[in-house]
Every structure is written in structure tokens, then in C-alpha cells.
């Protein structure tokens, strides 16, 4: 099976993506690894794709999204990095690959994903739920079950499809939805690309929900998963081999939730400790923290979220300012200033 595996990120996540792709190369040297980047490299950082642990880079602007600057401006960094996953997946169905796997840049493999290739023989769409076991304490239910109810049953840090049949139909549908409706707007029933996939088991056939605890281990499911390291060298989760971990929220918030539910299950901290060491090693000091080229107008002024929201709600502004990033006379930022916004 010819597999294409991609991840979507900006340069501030290059360190994490490097760790992911290094682990992918180790376990799947035959997969084609693609970095989908919605960013421009910061000044002072020389980006050499040939030296990176992926096979090629696709820049978001190459996806052929109509009115790209205007479309991009409507999204914040998280929204856009999730939104571009749809168009890429849709287009990858025509790339000659038999299967496409998406993994978030803050995931890392600890074992082979060969079972998903086997599952894709019988299924067209694979998803990993946030939870595969219910919680039973009020705190864990509030933190995990209700959180998943708000943000989506499935974690879209992973999705795998066959590029034909229902897989291709899913990719087209996801592409269409994400081009227009990939926002963090929970009251409106939207949480970027994720809430959409609550519909997948209803809208598509040949869907497999991966209920193996070794997949997509993360702070939101540690309350029901126990990690162990055997004398044989295997790392297991509830007895199943650990396949990949989702290191969401690297930093104090991630640590707090991990400790809250990891408790005395110390191999959890061994895994995190390993990840932090790898990310430190993969970090290039030339990339400023929180760097995102599209986070500022052309004159360097940071773009406020409210400006993006205003722009996406107002077709008249979209028509008047086809490149809203452009500062200066007659630009969108000047209009905002004059309007006192």
C-alpha cells in the first residue's frame, strides 16, 4: 500500500513536527512524508527542506484556495492550520497514494502503525475518539467527557483514509466544509475541523473507530489509560502496544492535565520527558517563539482576532480589501483605525 502521511503546521511548530517526522521515518521509511506549512520562514532562519526529516513541503498557498489572502485572513493560526488539512487531503486523493494519514505535529510514534494499513484494507476512513472508555468521577467527566462533547468526539490529530470510495468522498466533503466553516466558534457548533467529524459515522460507510488504547494517548484520556514498560522493552497502554502519543499543550497547561490524570503512573512522565528532550534538540533558536508570518499586517502590526472575525463576517470588507494584510493607504488596517476598531 502506498501511503502518504502529512502534518500541518507553522514554523513555531517546526521543532515538534521534526520530532514527529523523525519517528515516522524510523517506523515507516517507505511512507511519503509531507509537511503542509501555512507560514513563511522568519528572517534569520534558513529553511532547507532537504535537510528536514520529511520528503517534501507543500505551502498552503499552493493548494489553489480561491482568494487565498482573504481566505487566510479570516482564520487565526489554529483555525487555518486545521482548515488547510481538508484541501490537502482532498487533493492527495489524486496523488497516486493508496492511503493518506494525517498526524498533528505534536504527535510522535512509539511503535509501527502497520495495523492501520491492515485496517484500511477493510475500511475507508479511520478515526480515533478522544475517549474509548467513559469516566466516572465528576471532575474527570467535566474535564474530559464534556470537553469532548464540546470540541468533538473524535480527535483530528489523526485521520487516515483510502484515497478511493468513501475515503475520497469524505475528503471532498471535509474539504468543502473546512474551506468555509473551520472556526473556533463553539456556540455556533464549530470547533475548527473537529466537530464536523462527529457526523462521519452517520454520513459515511466503511468507517472504523479505532478503540485500541495504544493510539492517540493524550492528557484527555489518561484518566482511563495506564502506561507500562515491560522487561521485554515494550511500552504498553492498558496492555496494548503504544503506537502514538499526542503531546497536546507542551508547557504548564499540558503538564497540569497530564499530572492530574497521570498520577503515580510514572511511565507517563518518562514518555513526556523523552518528548521534551527531543523537542529541545529539534528547536532552532533562529525561529522566534510563537512566530507566524500571517499573524501581522504587512507593516508588522499584530492582527487582532476581532479584526479577523469582523472581516469574515463582512462580505463588503472582503470585497473592499481583497488583501487585508496590506497596510498603508487604503488598506484594511487603516480602515479599522479610522473606524476606531
Amino acid at each position, binding site marked *: 500500500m502506498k501511503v502518504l502521511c502529512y502534518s500541518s503546521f507553522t514554523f513555531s511548530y517546526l521543532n515538534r513536527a521534526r520530532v514527529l517526522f523523525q519517528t515516522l521515518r524510523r517506523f515507516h521509511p517507505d511512507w511519503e512524508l509531507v509537511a503542509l506549512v501555512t507560514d513563511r520562514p522568519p528572517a534569520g532562519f534558513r529553511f532547507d527542506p532537504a535537510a528536514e526529516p520529511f520528503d517534501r513541503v507543500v505551502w498552503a498557498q499552493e493548494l489553489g484556495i480561491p482568494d487565498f489572502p482573504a481566505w487566510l485572513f479570516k482564520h487565526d493560526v489554529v483555525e487555518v492550520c486545521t482548515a488547510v488539512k481538508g484541501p490537502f487531503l482532498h487533493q492527495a486523493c489524486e496523488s497516486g497514494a493508496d492511503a493518506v494519514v494525517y498526524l498533528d505535529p505534536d504527535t510522535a510514534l512509539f511503535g509501527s502503525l502497520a495495523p492501520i494499513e491492515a485496517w484500511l484494507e477493510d475500511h475507508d476512513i479511520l478515526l480515533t475518539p478522544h475517549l474509548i472508555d467513559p469516566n466516572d468521577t465528576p471532575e474527570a467527566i467535566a474535564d474530559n467527557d464534556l470537553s469532548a462533547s464540546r470540541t468533538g468526539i473524535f480527535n483530528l490529530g489523526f485521520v487516515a483514509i483510502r484515497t478511493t470510495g468513501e475515503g475520497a468522498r469524505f475528503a471532498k466533503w471535509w474539504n468543502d466544509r473546512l474551506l468555509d466553516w473551520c472556526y473556533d466558534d463553539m456556540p455556533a457548533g464549530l470547533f475548527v475541523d473537529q466537530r464536523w467529524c462527529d457526523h462521519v459515522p452517520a454520513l459515511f460507510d466503511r468507517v472504523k473507530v479505532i478503540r485500541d488504547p495504544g493510539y492517540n494517548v493524550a492528557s484527555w484520556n489518561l484518566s482511563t489509560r495506564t502506561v507500562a514498560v515491560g522487561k521485554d522493552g*515494550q511500552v504498553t497502554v492498558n496492555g496494548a502496544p503504544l503506537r502514538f502519543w499526542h503531546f497536546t499543550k507542551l508547557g*504548564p497547561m499540558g503538564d497540569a492535565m497530564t499530572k492530574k490524570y497521570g498520577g503515580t503512573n510514572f511511565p507517563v512522565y*518518562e514518555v513526556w520527558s523523552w518528548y521534551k528532550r527531543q523537542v529541545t534538540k529539534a528547536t532552532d533558536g533562529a525561529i522566534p517563539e510563537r512566530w507566524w508570518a500571517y499573524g501581522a499586517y504587512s507593516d508588522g502590526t499584530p492582527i487582532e482576532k476581532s479584526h479577523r472575525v469582523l472581516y469574515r463576517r463582512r462580505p463588503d470588507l472582503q470585497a473592499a480589501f481583497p488583501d487585508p494584510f496590506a497596510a498603508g493607504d487604503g488598506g484594511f488596517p487603516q480602515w479599522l483605525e479610522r473606524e476606531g476598531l
Partner: protein
Amino acid sequence: MAVLARSSASADEVHRVISTALDGAFYRAVNPDLAESGLDPIRHYAGSGWREGRDPAPWFSTRAYVEAYPEVVKAGWNPLHHYLIVGRREGREVVRSTLADDYLLRRARRGEAPAWRFETLIGEGQAADVLAEETALRHRERSLAAQEFDAGFYVASNPDVARTGVDPLDHFLASGWREGRDPNAAFSVKDYLESYPDIAAADINPFVHYLSAGRAEGRTGRTELGFRYEIIKRLVPLETRVAAVARASARLKLGTAAALAKALGGARTGLADLHVTFSHDDYTANTGGVQLCLQREGARLAALGRDHLHLYPAKPWPVVRVRGEPGHLGVLLNGEPAGIFAPKTIAGVLAKTAGAAKPRRRSFAIHSLLGHAASEAADILAAAELKAGFFWLHDFASLCAGFHLLRNDVEDCSAPPPESAACGICVYGPWRDRHLAEHERLFERLALTVVSPSQPTLDLWKASSAYPAAGETVLPHATLVARGPAPATPADRPLRVAYTGMPTAHKGWEIFRDLAARFAADPRYHFLHLGGRAPVGSPIEFHKVTVTGATPRAMQDAIARHEADVVLLWPLCRETFSFAAYEAVAAGAAIVAGPDSGNVAAFVEAGGHGIVLGDEDALARAFEAGEVLQLARAKRLPMLYDLAFSGLTVDLLEGVP
């Protein structure tokens, strides 16, 4: 005034805080333009209102606060939120809204008075009122904290505070919490601040917050993470340690070939009868199991009149070196320092000096390759015309850079395949190949007989390696020689459970400490610690015991003197021999051992010296159920023993009686 921290509060948090002080009626009244927006005043003020210079209450002028403290806005704070959380306590001043008087006048004309007294916040007498409020606040905080503050716990955990005589609660509220001291056993200041960055950013007493709000919000006062969490958190990448020692090694001042030749000139036999040893350090300057072994080996060689040349890395390397890394070697001749030299210098001088003598009885033993490069060691031995010798398994450095086989310093790994997931997450994993390659090189260059101090050590080594060894043998460092029955002890006293030695994690201190804490109030048990030092604040009965070359039996004597019934030997890593186990049994104690204790478990099981338990839960259960009470001296009527020590490698040399 403290350095201003950036605001890290979420929108929800800001909303929650300002909702306590924003005067909605005022806000609506002075901002009639908002009526159409439908937004509630709090949301509006939190969103755009403050940026537009609107005031949240009659007593607070947003514009005045922002002008007086521009850094507040720069640091991302909503001015009212900042004042309520930080500014007020720092004594920052607020100015009444310019709209306040008019608004209050209008209300007064309608016969309405505000629910609070404007004058307590600003205006004349402000300083006194603020002070009064501060005092009242402190009083409220103290009363709240006092309900669950455990003064006894605080004093026991903080002997330095106890010595000052300060009231423990006052100390905790004034500075103790900032120093990470805990108010009771159920609340961890450190945990709370780590778990809840919003509280840390707000710079408030976390215990007071927990009692007044946090607990009701579902926050946790203490996260039980276990001691292994702390070890993992402190892990230092091996490359950092190696880089540091490489830098230190490169700075060493080296002796010349002439100086070494001169030192070797003082040899007993002119190096005709020569035994060369390699280890990780200077056995005359450091203490430990391997050092004791080398001292015995050296003493036996001296008694035989042979020369003993010992080579060790002058700076302590945590890994084996590869050729080219600056690892200069310290040289001891017959236990006396000869200087520090480059490995090449040593090989060169040895070739001349030893070459000049007609070799008679020459031998070598590698006790540890840490800090040595295989090819350099082989070159040095070749210079003395040596190829066949002994390789000791004092540890597992020949299997991994983590020579205790303690994955991430927290759990025995049993040397799984190097490509395993376990090695993949281990801090020593990336260095394992180096150790395997260097030892492979060593075994290829030399004809090495592997000597193991115990059978289980040799078994694991053989199962986990494929080096071309010339032979193998098991030679225990000591054996038990019966001395007679131990003195009788009363049957009706608590079981005396001891920990012996340094309180370190890899020797199992925390397992003992937690067990002692759990059963501290159980009249069936009494816990004691015999060793060189006790951890600060340890509540466990401690007796100082110092084992030196002059007092090698000090620990054995102490165990007998204190009539320990049981010694808990629960090392996290497998012991290749364990003098501690032999000393315990020789002194009449039984051993309770952990499953990964290597030769401790084997020794206990082979000799019926105690019990081996499956895991830490089983240990707790054995104490809970009283199973371990069977190990009381009064029930076992144990024997006492002497230890008969081996002569180490000398026992294996040809021509030694």
C-alpha cells in the same frame, strides 16, 4: 513594587474577577450608547469598554489607572482586573470616575444610595481605610488557614522554622508558602502552583485560595505523583553530563613521559610481576563497593609482592569514551598516585619500562571501562605484553550506558533489545550503542574471562550480550561463615525494620520512607535508619554509622546492636552482589527484598534469608497483614556470621596459593 508579570488570565477568569466589582447600573447609566448592543456591562467592559476608556464603577477611572500605570496595559492586563488581583495589594492608587459625582447625585436625588460606601475606596482617610481593609483581609485569611493548618506537621517538616520559635502559621502566611513549604500533609504548595498557573500568576497564597475557592471549584490540593516523578523531572540528558566532563578533562594538566617513567621506577619488581587494573575512579580516594573490591585486590597483590598499576579516568566520566575524547587517566602504582597522563603517554612509557623488565607473572583485570576507550585500554595492555585477562561484572556498563539498567533512573529494565520502545524513551538509550560497540571492541582485542560476583548477574549478562568471551566464572565477593546463634530478643516488642546505608533512590530509600510513614502509628512496627546521613527533616529514628577501611564491620555491628529484625533491601536497580544483604544476614537480620533487586533476591531465596515480594503493593500488604512479623528474631532464632572476603582477581591468578 513587584516586577509586573504578564497577564496570563483567560477571558473567563477576567470576566469572573471583574464581575465582583463592576457596577452594572452605573455602567449602563453612563454609557447609554450600549443599550442597543444587547451586551451585558461586564462582557462589554472586558471586551472593548476598557480600551475605549469607559469606567466600570464610580470609584475607578480606567483612563487614570492606565495613565498612571501604562505598563499594566502593555503587559496585557485589563486595568480593573489588574487592580483587583494585584494593584490593590501593591498599594496602587485609583481615582474616581469623572462621571461618578454626577451619577451619584442623580441617584441620590431619586433617593437611591449605593450599596457600598464610596469614601472607603477613595477620598480623605483613604490610607487608613486601606490599611484597615488589609488588616481585615489578613485576619480573614489567617482564620481560614488556621482551620486546616497542621502546626505539628509544619514544625516537623521545617526544623529551621521550629528553631526560630516563630508561630508556624504566621511563618507560613508571611513567607513559608513562597518558599514552597506545605501547610499540612494533604496540601502541596508546589503542586498547586504548578497545576494552576492562574493562581501562580495571581501571586496569592495558594492554600488560602484552595480553602476559600479552589476546593469548591474542584481543584486538587495535592497531586500524588510519587517519588519517581521527581526523579524523571530532574533527569539530565547524558550529553549534557558528557559535555561537562569532556570540558573538565580537556583542562587537566598532564604529566610528562619522563615523570611517569620516574614514578614507575619505584615499582616493587620493576614491573616484572605486574597486575594492571582499570576502573572508573581512584579506589583510594572514593568509597563504595567497587572501590572496596579494588582495595582488597591491591592488598592481596601487595602481600604477594607484585606490582599493581591502576588506571582510572582523572575526571569521572558517566560513559565509556571513544578514542579522541579527552579522557586523561590517573595512575596509581601500588596504591600511590603517580600523576595524570594521556593514555598514549602511558602506553609509550609502559612499553619502555615494562619492556625493559623480563616479564614474569603479569595479569590484568578490567573492573570498569567507564571513562576509558577500549582501544586505548588494549594499547596500554599490549605495551605490557598483556592480552588475556579478566573482565568484572560489577555493574552492567557492558550492556548499556545506564550501567544500573535503571531506565530513566526509575525502573529496572533488564536490558531489553536496544531497538525496543523502552530504550527509545530512556535517557540512556541514545548512548547504548556506544557502550555496546566499545565493549565489542574490547572483547575482540583481548582474551577476556568474564568474572561475575553472582550467578543471576552472569545469567542476565549472557542473555543480553554476545561478546566473544574467552571464559566465564562466578566469584562472590564474600561468603558467610557461621559464628554462633544471635542473642535472644523479647518476643513481645514491635518488629524493628531498618534501612541501611545512604538514603538514595536507587537503593530504595523512598520505598522505605513511604512504608515507614504509612505504618508510623502501627504499634506492630518500629522503623530505624542506620547510615552515614539522614535526609533533612526525616522523622525516622536515625543512627549514624560510618563504614571505613578501618571499620569495615561498622554496619554489621550496628544492625546487631540495634537488633534490627528486618532490613528492607528494595533497590530500584538490580544488585550484582550486595554487601548490604550479606551484612544484614551476618548480623542476624532477615531481608525483605524487592523483585528487581538482582542478587539480593537470589541470595534471600537461596539461603532462606527472608522474603522476596512482587511489587510495592505486595510490600504494603505484607506489612498490613502482618506477614512480615514472622521475620522477628524471636521467631527465627537466627545465626550470626562473619564475612569471608574473596581476594577478587587475585583468587583467579595462576601461581597464587
